[in-house]
Structures are given as C-alpha cells and as structure tokens.
C-alpha cells in the first residue's frame, strides 16, 4: 500500500533523504524512528505528495504520488507533526471543509464525515469551538481527525501522540492499533516505548538513510550487543558473584540486590553464548537454592542506540 522506492530529496547541496526504500502493507502499522533531523518528516511529506522527490518513487496504493498526485492523495490521510490549522474556524467547520477537499459530496455527507472523525478522536465536545481557542493537544487531535476523513486506506501519521496528555495518548494508540487492522499506517515517533507496543515493524532512519527495518523484537534481539541473565539465589552475594564470574562465557557480573542471605545478580555473557545451563548447575553444585533465572529481553531502545550511536560517530 505504501511503497518508498529509493526516495531521495535534495534541498540545494543538502541531501535530506537518501535512497530510502521500504513498504507498508494493508493491515500493518509501521513505526518510523530516528533522531531529530533524520529525515522522517521529509520522507512522510514526500509520501504525502507535499513536494516531489528529487529521484525515486513514492507509491500510494500502487499510484505514483508525483505523476498521479490527485488519485494517490484520494487514498491517503496525512496528519502533520504540528498541524497548522485555520484558527478562526470551528473544529466542525474545518473538518467539513477537509471533507469537501477530500471529495465528500453534499453538505449532509460532509457533516456526517466530520462527525465520525470527531467521534473517533474525542472532539465531539469541542465541535463548535474555534480552533484558535483550543489547546495544543486538541490541535493534534484535529490534525488526526482530518486525516481520518473519507476513511482513506493509507494513513501517514507524523508524531500523532506528541503534545497529548497520557490518557489521550493511550486512546490515540488504541485507535491507531484498531485502524491498523484494515489500513496501511506509517507512524513516525521518537518515543521508542510507544512504537514498540504499537507497531508491527519499525524502520529506523538516520542521516536521511534507512539503517534497519524489522519487527521491534527481532531488531532488538539481532542488535543486542550482549545477552543478559538475571540470577537470584539463596547464597552469600560475594560468593555467588565469584561463582557466576567463573562460568565460561560470562563477561561481567553486577550485583542488583541482596537481602536476608539472598542475592540477585545480572550476568552479562558473550554475544551468542547461552550460559543458562552452566549457571544453574554451578549454583546448585554449591548447595544454594536457585530462586530465579531469567533472560533479560533487549529493548528497542538498546537496538536503536546500537544502530544510531555508531552512525553518529561516522
């Protein structure tokens, strides 16, 4: 549904987006991650047809955004990061105007489309208020509401929860997740935890280039620099640490907690080394009770840092 094919955008001598390629299928929510200035917004604007790429193609539902802009734009909803809206208009009037721009014919149909969008984004109670009088969080929701109008199959959401309070942020994520079943959705964000729970896949962008694209868990697993275990035993802390450190393949041991003759340690092993069996054997061999042994899941944040930090050093 969304295809970026070697997308490149140059502004004068500066290359903002450099041969970016990825796809988003219907029924998929894909997170678009990257530090500030990575080229996320420019890529989304290229996909939304705000301006054409210097080279490469952006396809929405198989339609080239540059050569068939109107047909492609009919199939997409775009919510900008900081939606610039006409402050003099009421929420309902603006959404009805957006419906008109999106080919919803007839005043009654436009009002109905605006009503549905307001319902979905929790804007009903401010329908008659002027946009200029509303808070930033409401502006964000109006931006999202206008993207949903006409129920386009493709949604491009640039930081959709930025500026929202926690309750509305959760609500918006739930809405995106629900929409994700029948739409192709690209969500840019810098909140990694949010993306991890929301998205089926992530595309990590840095310096205008795609560094990685995969499922969050796979990406995290693939990129974790070490494999970690948390070990808890009924044992003296120092003796336990010494025993764990002596296990072949263990690189480093940290004491996390100790109390009442029990200790909990984090064991950092060489990448790829599975030390769990040997750790369990050595602990029980000392006659200590093994109370817990759990692998520590690598987070997307770790993966992101593992990717972006070396790229920044280049």
């Amino acid at each position, binding site marked *: 549904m969304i295809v970026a094919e070697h997308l490149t955008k140059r502004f004068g001598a500066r290359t903002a987006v450099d041969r970016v390629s990825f796809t988003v299928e219907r029924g998929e929510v894909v997170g678009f991650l990257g530090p500030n200035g990575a080229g996320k917004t420019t890529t989304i604007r290229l996909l939304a*047809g705000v301006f054409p790429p210097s080279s490469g193609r952006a396809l929405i539902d198989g339609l080239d955004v540059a050569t068939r802009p109107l*047909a492609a734009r009919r199939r997409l909803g775009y919510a*900008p990061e*900081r939606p610039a809206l*006409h402050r*003099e208009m009421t929420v309902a009037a603006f959404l009805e105007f957006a419906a008109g721009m*999106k080919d919803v014919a007839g005043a009654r149909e436009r009002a109905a489309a605006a009503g549905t969008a307001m319902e979905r984004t929790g804007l009903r109670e401010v329908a008659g208020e002027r946009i200029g009088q509303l808070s930033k969080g409401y502006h964000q929701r109006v931006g999202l509401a206008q993207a949903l109008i006409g129920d386009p199959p493709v949604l491009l959401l640039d930081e959709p929860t930025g500026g929202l309070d926690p309750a509305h942020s959760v609500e918006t994520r739930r809405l995106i997740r629900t929409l994700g079943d029948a739409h192709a959705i690209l969500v840019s964000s810098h909140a990694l935890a949010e993306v991890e729970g929301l998205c089926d896949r992530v595309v990590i962008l840095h310096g205008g280039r795609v560094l990685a694209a995969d499922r969050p868990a796979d990406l995290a697993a693939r990129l974790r620099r070490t494999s970690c275990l948390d070990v808890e035993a009924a044992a003296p802390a120092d003796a336990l640490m010494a025993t764990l450190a002596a296990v072949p393949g263990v690189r480093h041991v940290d004491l996390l907690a100790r109390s009442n003759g029990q200790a909990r340690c984090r064991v950092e092993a060489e990448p790829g080394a599975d030390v769990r069996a040997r750790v369990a054997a050595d602990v029980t061999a000392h006659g200590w009770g093994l109370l817990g042994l759990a692998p520590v899941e690598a987070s997307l944040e770790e993966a992101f840092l593992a990717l972006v930090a070396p790229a920044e050093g280049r």
Partner: protein
Amino acid sequence: MRKTFLICRRELGVLFGGPLAWVLAAVFVLLTGYFFYSDLVFFVLFGGASLPAGLWRFVFLDYRLVALLVLPLLSMRLLAEERRLGTLELLWTYPVRDREVLAGKFVAALVVYLVLLLGTATGPAVLYMLHPFAPAPVLAGYVGLVLLGAAFLACGTAASAVTENQVVAAMLTYGVLVFCWFVSWNEAAVGETVAPVLLQLSLFDHFYGFAQGVIDSRDVVYLVAFTTLFLFLAARALESRAWRGVI
C-alpha cells in the same frame, strides 16, 4: 469547481472573521463616498453640461486611486498568511489542484471587492433618484473598475504567492502597480520610439476609456491578459515548492 467554491467560501469566512476586511471596507466606502461628494460639488460649481466628462470621469479616476490603495492590502494575505501559518501543507495533501486553490482565493478577494464596489453605488443611485441620468457611462466605469480591480488582485495574489510576509507582499504589489502607472509618464526619459510601446503597456492608460464611459475591446483584452499573466505567475510560484522544498 466545487472545491474552488469551498475554498472561496472558507476564504470569505476567514476574511470576514478578522478585522482586516471590515477595516478595508470602511476605508474604501468612506474614501469613495468623500470623492463622490467632492467631485459632485466640483461638477455643480464648474462642471458644465456633460456628466460623463464633468463628473463620472473624475469619480472613476478617483475610485481607481482608492482601489490602488486598498486592494493590495486585501490580496496580501491570500497565500502569504497560509505560507506563514503552514496551512498550505495540509492543502497540498488533499486531492485538490493548485489552480483550484488559486482560483478559490482570487475569487474570494474579487467577491469582497465587488461588495465594496456595490457600496460605492449608493452615491450615483441617490443622484439618479434626484436627477435621472444616462446610466450607460456609469456602467462602463464600473465594468472598468471591476476589470482593473481584478488586475490589481491578480498582481497581489502573485506577490502573496512568493513570500510568507504580508507586508512584503503588499509592497511588491504597490511596486508593480505604481510602476505600471508611472511607466508612460515621461516620454523624454525613454525616447520617442519606446514611449508609445510603454503607453500600450501602461495599466492605468487602459482605464481612461472606461472612466469616460467607453468600453474599448483593446482595453478589455489588455486588463484580462494582465490578470491572466499574474495568475499564471502565482501558479508558477506555488509550484516552486517542488524545488525550493519549502511549503
């Protein structure tokens, strides 16, 4: 066409939702009203027998100056304001053509101008009730004012399309329009061969016929061509986002 209408309606709502349109309307009606009264007094005292030559000519030439003063301030915000606010970004992601956006905004400004012109018709209407006169020269004058105003607004729309600063847009419009007025003033400065050409290009020289109650097709073609040229330039300015990368 439907989208042009919707954009035009929204633009009118935004224009009259703020103070600018009301202030401009008040200034326009007051100034034109004063000019009408002043020209009428002058005609009664010194004007002679011919209304077109003694009254309407002066009235329409004065109205032209008020239009020159007010219309660049009406057109300056059309696109510059949207550029500054960033509201154009969303519009570019809707299935709407640049020319529909441009037409909607231009027509909205033209509608406001027509309403202002309607306000100026009060003086002639009252005069007609007191002292009936041949309406054709007055209608010709208004046709000229509509065409001239459309040319001013097209020029202002183009200026508004190249900048996000409304004052810059207004100054650019004043610069172009005043140059088009003065360009034919001094034959000595340009030489005898160039002067007639400049006279043909001078925006204001093409209004004198209308002011005197004459509709000349050459003047109509010139003013329509002037309007079309500047709307074309405005469209090119909007398209420049493709390579400028700014919205």
